[in-house]
């Protein structure tokens, strides 16, 4: 636990209980949605959005603009000619993809940025990108609309990032390290609740919010159960292909026997087709680091 080792913490305090209290008493510090990301998220929801408006919004944040160019030029997006301007990036990758990249870059810089947990957050970010990739692929495979699928997967564990960002504020009393298994268990137990708070704070679209809150408990989704189920499977596949220290490593057998496969009605050959896209997912995760 590279990041957590540097902070004051104790195992005598039950981390899970501390998180629970923080959430119940609304004392969890929620990161602001970066201004540009908020605008981008709002633009995605508007029918009148066009490339010019999107470019204009992104141009206001030079760090974001340069990061988009970096990602647009990465191997995952296979540009033969290097992309040098934002307009060129928009026309090369399309507005939807630029929106996804913009959201990813903005959220990463704001929510996945606690230096005390840098290594953990880096792993979590990689897992999130891979989950976003697979959520989109599962939607496509099932001939469902893929518009918002990537963001659903990308943000599904944002509650964990919020909890990690709060870790140094929550655990102040002792000096011992938080044991990794205790941290993992506490994050798993409370990340949906923390994600729910953030979804409300950021006024996420309902589909995104349900993916964040219900991806482990898709029966509780009220409107977008299908979306939550796709994120659930993508999450499992991501854990299998790229295990992180924060989540349970999934085995191929565990995926093949998981009830979500039946719920999504995906047959073994379709699952194999999905797993065959692992390299693409890893490449995308690399490009978005």
């Amino acid at each position, binding site marked *: 636990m590279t990041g957590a080792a540097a902070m004051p913490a104790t195992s005598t305090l039950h981390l899970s209980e501390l998180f629970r209290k923080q959430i119940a008493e609304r004392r969890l510090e929620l990161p602001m949605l970066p201004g540009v990301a908020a605008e981008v998220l*709002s633009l*995605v*929801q*508007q*029918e*009148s*959005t*066009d*490339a010019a408006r999107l470019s204009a919004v992104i141009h206001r944040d030079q760090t974001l603009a340069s990061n988009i160019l970096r990602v647009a030029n990465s191997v995952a997006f296979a540009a033969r000619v290097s992309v040098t301007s934002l307009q060129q990036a*928009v*026309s*090369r*990758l*399309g*507005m*939807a993809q630029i929106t996804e990249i913009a959201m990813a870059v903005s959220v990463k810089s704001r929510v996945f940025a606690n230096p005390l947990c840098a290594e953990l957050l880096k792993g979590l970010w990689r897992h999130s990108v891979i989950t976003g990739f697979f959520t989109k692929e599962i*939607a*496509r495979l099932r*001939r*469902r*609309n*893929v*518009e*918002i699928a990537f963001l659903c997967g990308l943000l599904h564990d944002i509650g964990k990032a919020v909890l990690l960002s709060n870790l140094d504020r929550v655990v102040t009393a002792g000096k011992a390290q938080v044991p990794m298994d205790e941290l993992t268990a506490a994050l798993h137990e409370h990340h949906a609740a923390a994600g729910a708070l953030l979804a409300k704070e950021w006024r996420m*679209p*309902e*589909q995104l919010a349900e993916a964040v809150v219900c991806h482990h408990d898709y029966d509780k989704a009220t*409107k*977008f*159960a*299908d979306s939550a189920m796709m994120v659930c499977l993508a999450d499992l596949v991501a854990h299998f292909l790229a295990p992180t220290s924060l989540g349970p490593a999934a085995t191929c057998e565990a995926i*093949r*026997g998981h009830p979500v*496969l*039946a*719920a999504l*009605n*995906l*047959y*073994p050959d379709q699952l194999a087709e999905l797993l065959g896209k692992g390299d693409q997912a890893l490449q995308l995760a690399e490009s978005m680091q």
Partner: protein
Amino acid sequence: MSDPVRYDVVIVGSGPAGQKAAIQAAKEDRRVCVVEREQGVGGACVHRGTIPSKTLRETAVHLAGFRLRVGNHVQVTIPPDLQLASLMDRMESVVAAHVKYQDAQLRRNHVEQLNGRARFVGPHELEVETVYGERRRLWGEHIVIATGSRPRTPAEIPIDHEHVLDSDSVLNMAYLPRSLTVLGSGVIASEYATIFAALGVHVTMIDKAERPLAFLDREIQSRFVEAFECNPGCVYVGGASIARVEWDGVSEVVTRLANGWEARSQKLLCALGRVANVEGLDIGAAGLATNERGHIPVDQDCRTVVPHIFAAGDVIGPPSLASTSMEQGRRAMRCALGLPLTAGDELIPAGIYTIPEISSVGLGEAAARKQFGDCLVGRSRFDELARGQIAGCTEGLLKLVADLHGKVLGAQIIGEGATELIHLAQMAAMHGDTVDMFVDKIFNFPTLAEAYRVAAFEIMAQRRARQPAAG
């Protein structure tokens, strides 16, 4: 692998055709198993087609009606960031209720259900694979293939389910687009085009057919196009040859025609027909093959070339209506079990849930003239009816077709309530009634059914005028 489980009847698919076939067999005390590859019974009709699209249509109809009635006093607009799902918030409960009802019906009739993908391993034997990869074998004395259809994806149309959609993915678009191009002019294309038009989307329908819904009466087609093009920004482009469809990489889908004309829209719906779900079934192992259109050929009783195997519903081709599929499933099973069959196949009505809706039964004017040399035609416009004015559905038209003695041959209706109204004509045609019946009997007033009286009067007048010549 253990011996196959033996059944009197194995049915592959639980949509309208499979469901009715199963119930028919169960009512005759046969041991029946239905194999369904999707979760829950009902097939595409319940989960991806008829029921979900009609739920969205219901919202669009209410919105259009509300605009019509209070639009002069209250501004009715849809917020630009409205999620499509919020227009379909009843869908989940409607689908769940329907699945529950159908499932209960199968259980009540002791029909066994198996979730998995079936493939033939012999003329009487099927292997079923579950989502978890388990396999089991079934043996059926009779087998019914009712696997339905899915949207056709022409190689030249780059369907990505993001910008270029098919009729499955169009229903879960995140947000209402500002503009939509619809490729096709059949039932599905026309239904979605008018639903989105009623929701305020600018819709361009493009097809090689000069007019949409080619199988309908020309007057009804014209009324349909007029009603559709009354919506702001909506147009039908007929006689078109599509040269290329592409996402411009920025914000629009570009549809180029061979004549150089192009349409740009935020989304495109490809509704250029459906293909039968036969892949993976390995019908060759049972001695079957598809025809040149990819459908399983059957006779009038839905029997395939292998006598104990039947096929029903979309998998045998047009008309691909849920109502027709139900009758085909029932008929196939009655034939398989040697039960008496009734005639009347040709009097199945067609219901098209466009806005306004359209329905037809029996012969249209052109078909009647072709078959009988001449016919009598009575028309009633809904704007001449008290109920039409009250309800604001003045664009409607009923066309009644009769032989020279006034015997009802068919009817075509466009206008709200058409799919319900058509059953009066269906009953009259089935019983060989003349149009006089519509005048002699008393209908409620004010109702749209009054249109039958108006049309009947017109036919009676034509009949009187022709009487000396008719002898």
